[in-house]
């Protein structure tokens, strides 16, 4: 007689044993398993909310892959670009470059937990999580490869994380901190509890809704399919958090949550905020980035905090203030430094400006004059007149340009340490740096490297250093200028 699933699953999940040849601390060293180091008794009640067997996992994943590949087959390669808005294509290129290999790095994090997680159920979940992340790498690589025939810059789907391109350096810095250079416990809190429970909803579910309206059904199916995996392995974070809090590590847990919330916010305003509001066609915009953040991220995050009686991060008021402005300031940075990117960047047209002002009542008065100025510069002196040529100051924690929250509202600050002066875009970035200065102090931003001669100061040489072949690969104005007749074919190599 075949046992029913529920009769054997608990036995299969809980296969911890007492080691005889090494002691528990040798088997699970604190340096990799994490702090606090607790005997297995403290972890014995580690339970995931939704249990999955390997058999179920394989069957589900096969179905999900078949759904994505079915859409890919139905569309047929020659029609991959049919009907897609030009801005949307750039959004996909931006997303693929920034996300595909980060997912692969996520597999390393899951595998670390699969070996050094402190309970076998945790290790089982992480094993499936690692398979998830490999899948999340392979699908964008496949689709990016399909797109190569139409736009050579889709090779950045694979190439981006192997370059010194500045957006990618910022992303790598975050992901190294979040999980590649983190022990199993810190990874579970930072990656699973904060990043995947909150922020990936935005990148995958909200973006999938937009993809549907932008008629990019392959991308929609890909994103939604990925998020179902994320939602499953994200639950690793909750029982780890529960164990930390039950064993006197509330302060550490709160710090990891605060830190990672801020760091994720920084990356998402740069990546998702700008993409949603400047590259998505108007008729595909269901909500503003701020509305998505409030509904999909903040609300879920608040529930998580309440569940564990954790405090809101101390910088919450600043975060709320930034929601109205920061990604709009960042977009101006992307636009004026677009030759350092692998995708094209849009200057908002009149209809988009109207939409932005409806969603952000201060938008026109705050940012309108700056975009007007860029338009006038183009008319007066051509495209080169709309580029920034000086170096932007980069934050020594998030590695992103130290933008104003809005013009006239400057939150930059510095820190002097061991004879070096560090710049930060904001007090939370300085605070995080100060908490773990030995972890971050030796890193040099792109600007630091230029200033000391480790990276070239000349823009054309800097392109090469960043892996960008100019002018073929370097980002351009999305519409190729103010006049529609200027529109060139999408560059291809």
């Amino acid at each position, binding site marked *: 007689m075949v046992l029913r699933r529920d009769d054997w699953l608990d036995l299969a999940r809980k296969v911890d044993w007492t080691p005889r040849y090494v002691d528990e601390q040798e088997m699970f060293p604190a340096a990799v398993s994490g702090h606090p180091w607790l005997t297995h008794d403290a972890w014995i009640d580690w339970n995931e909310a939704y249990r999955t067997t390997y058999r179920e996992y394989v069957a589900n994943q096969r179905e999900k892959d078949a759904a994505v590949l079915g859409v890919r087959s139905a569309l047929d390669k020659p029609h991959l670009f049919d009907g897609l808005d030009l801005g949307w294509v750039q959004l996909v290129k931006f997303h693929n470059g920034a996300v595909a290999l980060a997912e692969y790095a996520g597999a390393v994090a899951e595998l670390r937990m699969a070996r050094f997680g402190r309970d076998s159920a945790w290790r089982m979940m992480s094993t499936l999580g690692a398979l998830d992340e490999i899948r999340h790498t392979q699908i964008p690589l496949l689709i990016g490869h399909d797109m190569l025939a139409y736009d050579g810059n889709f090779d950045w789907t694979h190439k981006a994380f192997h370059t010194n391109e500045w957006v990618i350096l910022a992303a790598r810095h975050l992901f190294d901190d979040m999980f590649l250079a983190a022990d199993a416990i810190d990874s579970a809190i930072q990656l699973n509890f904060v990043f995947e429970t909150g922020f990936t909803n935005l990148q995958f579910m909200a973006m999938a809704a937009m993809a549907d309206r932008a008629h990019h059904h392959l991308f929609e199916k890909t994103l939604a399919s990925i998020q179902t995996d994320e939602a499953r392995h994200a639950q690793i974070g909750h029982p780890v958090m529960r164990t930390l809090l039950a064993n006197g590590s509330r302060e550490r847990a709160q710090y990891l949550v605060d830190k990672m919330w801020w760091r994720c916010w920084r990356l998402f305003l740069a990546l998702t905020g700008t993409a949603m509001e400047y590259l998505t066609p108007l008729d595909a915009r269901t909500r503003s980035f701020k509305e998505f953040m409030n509904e999909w991220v903040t609300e879920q995050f608040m529930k998580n905090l309440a569940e564990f009686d954790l405090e809101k991060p101390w910088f919450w008021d600043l975060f709320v203030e930034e929601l109205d402005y920061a990604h709009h300031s960042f977009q*101006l940075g992307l636009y004026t430094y677009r030759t350092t990117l692998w995708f094209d960047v849009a200057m908002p047209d009149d209809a988009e400006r109207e939409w932005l002002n409806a969603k952000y009542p201060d938008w026109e008065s705050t940012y309108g004059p700056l975009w007007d100025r*860029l338009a006038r510069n183009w008319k007066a002196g051509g495209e080169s007149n709309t580029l*920034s040529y000086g*170096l932007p100051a980069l934050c020594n924690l998030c590695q992103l*340009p130290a*933008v*104003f929250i809005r013009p006239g509202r400057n939150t930059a600050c*510095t820190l002097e340490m061991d004879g070096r002066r560090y*710049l930060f875009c904001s007090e939370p970035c300085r605070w995080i740096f100060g908490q773990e200065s030995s972890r971050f102090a030796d890193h040099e931003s792109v600007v630091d490297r230029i200033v000391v001669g480790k990276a070239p100061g000349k823009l054309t040489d800097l392109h090469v250093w960043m892996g960008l072949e100019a002018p073929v690969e370097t980002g351009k104005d999305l519409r190729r200028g103010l006049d529609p007749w200027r529109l060139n074919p999408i560059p291809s190599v």
Partner: protein
Amino acid sequence: MRIYLFGYGSDDFLARVVVTPDERTVAQLAAQLVAWGLAPERGGTLTVHNELGDVLDSNSTIAAAGLGNGDVFTVERG
């Protein structure tokens, strides 16, 4: 001596790196930053603050005003 500073123009949107000899005046430093911003032709007086918010004497040299490598300064118009 050539130094690098991080300058914020009040009508700009991000901080810019300014590399300058520190024998130049604070007024020249402000003019250099504003020239790189999006509204270089706008008139008005320029007031320079250090990170603490102190107003710097525009006739003073950058070195005498206390600005050194890696310092932040803000330029306000009007």
